[in-house]
């Protein structure tokens, strides 16, 4: 079972057990993790699922696609090198992923 570690801007952390095939966004929304809205349901049209992906997980997912790149420019919190839209981070079985939630999504 994949696991996601969500760190809030204040430093607090929450660990959630996910289902393989779900995204980091879906896992957050289903479990009521604060700070990830996911308004568009994962179709890359809202930029409200922005997260910072931990260095150690950088190679675990396909690189930022063209559409994701464009939408990241729309995010409420300034993007950084490790910015991702969490609806694009689909979890494999057994994966442990660490992400940090940005200051604001809206």
């Amino acid at each position, binding site marked *: 079972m994949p696991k996601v570690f969500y760190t809030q801007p204040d430093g607090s952390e929450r660990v959630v057990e996910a289902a393989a095939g779900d995204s980091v966004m879906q896992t957050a929304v289903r479990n009521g993790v604060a700070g990830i809205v996911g308004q568009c349901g994962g179709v890359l*049209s*809202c*930029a409200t699922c922005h997260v910072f992906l931990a260095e150690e997980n950088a190679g675990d997912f396909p690189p930022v696609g063209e559409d994701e790149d464009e939408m990241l*420019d729309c995010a*409420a919190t300034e993007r950084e090198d490790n910015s991702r839209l969490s609806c694009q981070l689909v979890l494999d079985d057994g994966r442990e992923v660490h992400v940090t939630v940005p200051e604001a*999504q*809206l």
Partner: protein
Amino acid sequence: MTETTSVGTEFPFGPVSPDDAVEHMKRLLADRPMTKVTMPHGGDLWVVHRNRAAKEVLADPRFVREPFRTGERVVPFPVPFPDFLRTTLQFEDPPQHTKLRKLVQKAISPRRVREMRSSAVAFANELIDRMLARDGVHNLVAEYAVPLPIEMLSSLLGVPSSDREKFERWSSSSMSVAGASDSSAADMAELAAYMTDLIAKRREEPRDDLLSSLAHAREKDETLTDAEILPIAFILIVGGFDNTANFITTAVRSLLRSDEQRALFLTDPDGLAPTAAEEVLRHGGFETGNPVGAGGGLVPFVAKEDVLVDGQLIAAGEAVAIDPVSTNHDPATFEEPGRFDITRKDNPHLMLSHGLHHCLGAPLARMELQVGMSEIFKRIPGLRLAGEAEARSDVLTQPMTGLPVTW
């Protein structure tokens, strides 16, 4: 009114007290995920009540809108569905939808809206200054809740300030229930002519606004035509003026009616505005004291193939819509759904929908609602109701037209 205490699980149900409505929905939600109803127009429709099932439907590409757009099927709705709305983004499916949507979304992105926030705060305060200049009873809708979104959307679209008054009329005409007003068709034609003219101007002389960027959008060598831009402008005008004004009015009204939540809000209006705004969207209508009924849904979809949702088969060709009232009061999703709690953290309400067709202006609506409620209570903490609210019933969204307040 002795029946109201013995409500069962029927749907639709007539107006009952908000508390009874919450209880009724609790039984309904325990009983089944959705109900098949026959709409006065367009025939049968599955209306989804459970929050999770609703999100499943909204995120599933097998539910489409094409048969409504082409006219192959009449939209199942409580009133005849306004024709012009069928030509908007709401009724496009991917890939055309994706292309148009992306262009607009960038212009109303969370980032862009954050940049607009300080001008919203400044304009809200101008409106409050004008109210404070005169004692007595004021109409919060006309003096505050309507002008704020009009100003923000007009500057986003690039509508000259001198023309903004016309927009108020056009925007409510566009939502008129068919036949309710003779002037509405003429108003709509006027709006279309006005926008076409403005688009032409922006094609020639682009500025830093949405119409200019749509007129000059080149998405992989494709330019948008007037016929594509016009409906986008329409949907923004309709959603942007009317709905947002209603949200702001509901926010103020519900806080004015709850001494406890208002006292809490006044301790930190800016800090509490984000969660308070979401709670107003979810539940504010219940706090205004009006009886609550249920029977409608958001704009429907049609199933392209058989889909099983929460144990219920929705057969190919059947129509399905989300009922925001019950999905926002689902005890499986919301703790104590009947409680008005402006600090509620986990609040996945569906008032702005979800998925592919979620409210295009959601970031803007949220920002305006937050600014609208916090500025007025910061400046006039002694604000109070001075009479009953008035609403228009000849308009689809039944907007409030009057809310007398004083201090």
